[in-house]
């Protein structure tokens, strides 16, 4: 079987560019020079490895992982589930998936968030899990609320859950945001619209998944994640000085 080689080059026209003027904060935080394209070395093909000793089974249950005994977070109970695959369509097993979000009222539990919606004493707002051998992951949480932010004076973020994924190599490291089907704020959001291709935006919108609900208990949304794939080393390619 051919050995895996470098990761496929990242499609920079599919991802948002660094400078996106309507998302104002990007203007002073975007490099002006071109990125220097680097063929993967061992430093990029490898990345941190996590195991079940690193996390607790309750970490993936945001309804209960910060709640007092006998209590639970307030809001619409949802399951967020899906698979982590690579661009070759293969599952990415045992990779760390981390999630964070506002509460049902749109308020983050963060020193720096001063929005008037109240903190939920039983909701922390973060979770983490490892994918199983099929690349499958799931969280239980409450659906986050929309909230205002200072971009334009009347800017509102659509309901979203931030997702952080590792993969097997540092070159796959990715942070993204999951949105929810039917939210009218999605296409008005300057952060969503940093992504130039409408098809790419659709990839961040989780559909309602009635087959994954727990009837009379919890509704479900499905969010699959794709990380960069690796090419196969069919023939050794030894370049002098490289």
């Amino acid at each position, binding site marked *: 079987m051919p050995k895996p080689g470098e990761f496929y080059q990242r499609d920079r026209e599919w991802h948002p560019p660094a400078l996106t003027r309507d998302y104002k904060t990007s203007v*002073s935080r975007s490099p002006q*020079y071109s990125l*220097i394209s*680097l063929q993967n070395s*061992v430093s990029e093909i490898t990345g941190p490895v996590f195991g079940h000793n690193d996390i607790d089974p309750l970490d993936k249950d945001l309804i209960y992982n910060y709640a007092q005994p006998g209590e639970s977070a307030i809001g619409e109970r949802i399951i967020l589930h899906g698979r982590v695959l690579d661009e070759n369509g293969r599952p990415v097993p045992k990779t760390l998936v981390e999630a*964070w979000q506002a509460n049902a009222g749109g308020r983050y539990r*963060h020193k720096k968030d001063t929005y008037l919606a109240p903190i939920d004493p039983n909701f922390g707002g973060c979770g983490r899990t490892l994918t199983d051998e099929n690349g499958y992951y799931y969280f239980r949480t409450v659906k986050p609320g929309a909230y205002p932010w200072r971009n334009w004076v009347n800017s509102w973020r659509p309901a979203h859950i*931030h997702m952080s994924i590792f993969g097997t190599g540092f070159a796959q*490291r990715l942070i993204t945001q999951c949105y929810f089907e039917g939210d009218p704020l999605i296409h008005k959001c300057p952060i969503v619209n940093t992504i130039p291709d409408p098809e790419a935006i659709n990839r961040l919108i989780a559909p309602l998944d009635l087959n994954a609900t727990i009837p009379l208990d919890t509704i479900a949304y499905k969010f699959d994640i794709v990380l960069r794939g690796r090419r196969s080393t069919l023939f050794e390619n030894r370049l002098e000085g490289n």
Partner: protein
Amino acid sequence: MTQELNYLKETPSQTAGPYVHIGLAPGAAGFDLYKQELGWDIAGPNAKGERIRIEGIVIDGTGSPVKDVLLEAWQANADGNYAHPEGGGDVEQGFRGWGRVITDFETGEWGFNTIKPGSTQGRNVGTQAPHINLWIVARGINVGLNTRIYFDDEAEANAADPVLNLVEWERRRATLIAKRTERDGAVVYRFDVKLQGEDETVFFDI
């Protein structure tokens, strides 16, 4: 018509936003939720090699510190091996080589303790000078930025490094090299990152 290439497309990136700490370092956001947070101990107690500290600040295009940035470091051990099945060889028990670094919210200063990595194998032949990969996310950064920290006391190895030599403009290479100092008998390297403007740090598409 042709057959279809059935590759999937990578999930597009979105900014980590201002509240990235809630997810990745909740203690910094002001609450303890996890029994153990990840990435605070890069080298572990058993790693050989020189114990060092790296400090810096991330500066935006207006010259102001980026106070809400989060960085991740990825490095080899002193033998040049990564803690990974394809990492080149064994590492010490407890050496992960990965760290998560947050700033002081008031000043934007950050720092982390680790060991100085060894030289690592090059892409196909040769070696890479000791370095630490750095990944930078924050509000206003749409796709995480990749750069590398090299060390100014490795001038010979740096001069032969294939990645530094890929940077066509010699004066820009200096943005990737941390400056060694000593404080109270400890080794501290300084590595400031400039997102934009004069002496903008070199960022890589890895």
